[in-house]
């Protein structure tokens, strides 16, 4: 019951969706559309569980007075505040002058954007400290990166303007992107495609069961 029922569900759903691709009959199409919508609805609850886990984690930190617990108060407080604001009315998420929108544009947005912009500094530091032409492979990586970096900026072409058209740095960068890069990414994508298909088949047939987790 605890393991068999989920395995049966996964088999029926998986086999139906895979076969539906080859037999797009009217009736199967209706079931298919509704099954997809059900997936979205069920998925919403899954996300809600994720938020529940977040609350649990921070509640635990606060109640046990763990290290840096006051920051967890900030998280819980912000969560409650934003939820109340957002759920207060359907217009909350549509009114550009509302507080919910202001919180999004002036609190959430700048912090998120700045967090990611830090990566500019980290990538510069990584380039300085770790990008070494130690081996043939590392040199290939480095040369390709430098050519693409130069070839995709206007300055790159200005620096190689003395070279004939078609042999400038931007042309070289373009060649790398169009050919060796395409070959490399294609090999990866074919691998990914085969991997996903194999894993999907294993899940549908019940060979892959790690998703059931531990326990009975």
């Amino acid at each position: 019951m605890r393991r068999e029922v989920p395995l049966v569900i996964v088999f029926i759903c998986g086999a139906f969706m895979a076969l539906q691709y080859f037999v797009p009959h009217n009736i199967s199409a209706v079931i298919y559309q509704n099954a997809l919508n059900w997936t979205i609805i069920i998925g919403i609850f899954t996300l809600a569980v994720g938020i529940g886990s977040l609350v649990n984690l921070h509640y635990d930190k606060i109640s046990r007075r763990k290290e840096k617990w006051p920051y967890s108060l900030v998280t819980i407080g912000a969560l409650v505040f934003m939820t109340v604001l957002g759920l207060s009315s359907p217009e909350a998420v549509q009114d550009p002058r509302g507080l919910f929108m202001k919180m999004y544009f002036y609190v959430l947005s700048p912090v998120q954007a700045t967090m990611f912009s830090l990566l500019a500094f980290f990538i510069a530091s990584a380039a300085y400290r770790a990008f070494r032409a130690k081996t043939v492979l590392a040199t290939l990586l480095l040369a390709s990166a430098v050519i693409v970096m130069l070839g995709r900026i206007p300055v790159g072409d200005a620096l190689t303007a003395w070279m004939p058209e078609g042999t400038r740095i931007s042309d070289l960068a373009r060649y790398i992107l169009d050919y060796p890069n395409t070959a490399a990414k294609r090999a990866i994508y074919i691998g990914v495609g085969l991997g996903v298909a194999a894993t999907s088949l294993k899940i549908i047939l019940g060979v892959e069961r790690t998703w059931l987790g531990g326990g009975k």
Partner: protein
Amino acid sequence: MEQISLGTLIWMTVAAFLTLSIFSFLYRDNPFYRFAEHLIVGISAGYWIAILYHTSLTDLWIEPLVDSVSAFGAAGGSIPAKIGILLANLTPGVIGCLMFTRFFKSKAWISRWPIAYYLGISAGVALPLYIQSFVIRQVAANMFNPVIIYNTIVSDLSTLYYYGNSMMGIWTGIGDIIILLGCVCGLAYFYFSAEHTGVLGAAAKIGIWTLMIGFGATFGYTVMARISLLIGRFNFLIDWVSALGNYFNL
């Protein structure tokens, strides 16, 4: 820059303070950074709840469910049909609610049912589509006609010999060979069921060279991506300083 209201200026100042708090991490970890970090986790979660509720849960589940319940009070339509519609609208929500059993240890196993449904649908959908788009279409695009490649290179070489220009065809021809060889050798590199020696070893070596050039290209582009994000934040800070200057006539 146009004149902005005091309210907007205050909000912009809050955003600038948070921006600088995050930037302060570059010097070292500090309470301002940690405050902003924790604040944003809470704000994001609250935002998710509101958006999911208003844009997804309401029109996909709650409203159809309410409609199917109120249909019982309306004239027309058979009762079995109404029950059928009600069940169809109710079931996904009930299955979804089973996810919450995760919070009760003894009943946590029930949460496997919605997971099984989601996983089954996703796996079933992915199986044929990944094979089609990522394998068959990609392999098909790799099937270059060697005669065409040969003709292109030869005709271009003769043009080059007689007129001293037009190398494009040659490079394209060589490029097509690079794609074919690079891809096959790249796949050879990922083939771990046999030892990488002999022909397979040589192919795997060419494969890893190709992959490295590909990763290098990705790194080059990644630098541009990260710098772009930084430009975005600097743009905001410049706007904020200009807004302050404008407001106080500095």
